[in-house]
């Protein structure tokens, strides 16, 4: 059963101003989520680097976070997907390998590579946005799933933070935002020559596609975690 007053936002004309104000602020609770400051930081770095496409990507993602935040209103979902059968795993790996090898044959400088990778990204985004709360902004009253936190999850947070810190120090040591410092290489400076051609390039692209599949399956788990989802 849906709550007919949910999603009304600021409404002082109905004599329920206090409640409307509370609902209005509750729609913005997603702004306190950890991904928001990380996205703002990433956007700041991209602005410093001055690549228009990267800036557009970050700003577009921020806009999507706001749009989806207003739909989800800070709710959580169990992102654990249904288990896969072996045939699905084998089929997914085969498709990723064929696509990975195919993409690796396109030269790095070719515009078609950008188009092909953009198509993969748009497909992943479309699959992810196709699920979630109803488009009318209403949410049902079903209990919100709150997945249990894995033991000592902060260990992985610490490892990730260390990696970001080293990358940030390397980035800040550059003479300018677009020129690598050979004394303090970033991860991309180290990996790009390896991924330039041949088997490593095909393997890297295949792993990238599999990682995308892994992520998309979790973004789509919402539909299975709540009754009445579209």
């Amino acid at each position, binding site marked *: 059963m849906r709550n007919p007053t949910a999603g009304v936002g600021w409404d002082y004309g109905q004599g329920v101003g206090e409640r409307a104000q509370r609902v209005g602020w509750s729609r913005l609770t*997603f702004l306190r*989520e*950890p*991904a*928001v400051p*990380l*996205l703002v930081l990433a956007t700041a770095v991209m602005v410093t680097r001055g*690549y228009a496409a990267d800036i557009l*990507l*970050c700003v577009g*993602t921020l806009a*999507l*976070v706001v749009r989806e*935040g207003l*739909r989800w209103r800070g*709710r*959580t979902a169990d*992102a*654990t997907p249904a288990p896969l059968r072996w045939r699905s795993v084998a089929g997914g790996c085969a498709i990723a390998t064929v696509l990975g090898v195919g*993409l*690796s044959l396109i030269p*790095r400088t070719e515009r078609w*590579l950008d188009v092909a*990778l953009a198509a*993969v*990204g748009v497909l*992943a*985004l479309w699959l*992810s946005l196709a699920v*979630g709360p109803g488009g009318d902004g209403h949410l049902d009253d079903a209990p919100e*799933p709150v*997945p249990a*936190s*894995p*033991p*000592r999850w902060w*260990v*992985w947070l610490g*490892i990730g933070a*260390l*990696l970001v810190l*080293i990358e940030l120090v*390397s980035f800040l040591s550059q003479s300018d935002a677009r020129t690598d*410092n050979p*004394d*303090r*290489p970033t*991860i*991309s400076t*180290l990996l*790009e020559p390896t*991924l330039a051609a041949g088997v490593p390039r095909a393997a*890297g*692209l295949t792993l*990238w596609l599999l990682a*995308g599949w*892994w*992520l998309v399956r*979790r*973004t789509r788990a919402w539909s299975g975690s709540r009754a009445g989802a579209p």
Partner: protein
Amino acid sequence: MSGWEGTVTAYGLVLAAAVVASLVARRRPDVLGGLGMVVTWAMRRRSTQLFLLLTWWWLGWHLVTSR
């Protein structure tokens, strides 16, 4: 130790820490959750889902194109 060696060593130590953590998580999941489990848990929020999708796509694009 040069700056290059120091930086690469730092990346190597982080990678080694991740490998050790993965091994511990595999042997003792009651002590330490695996990376996949932690990421899945973090993806309970929609903003994290979109952030990770952006990060994944940007990394692929950044590493394999000539920009």
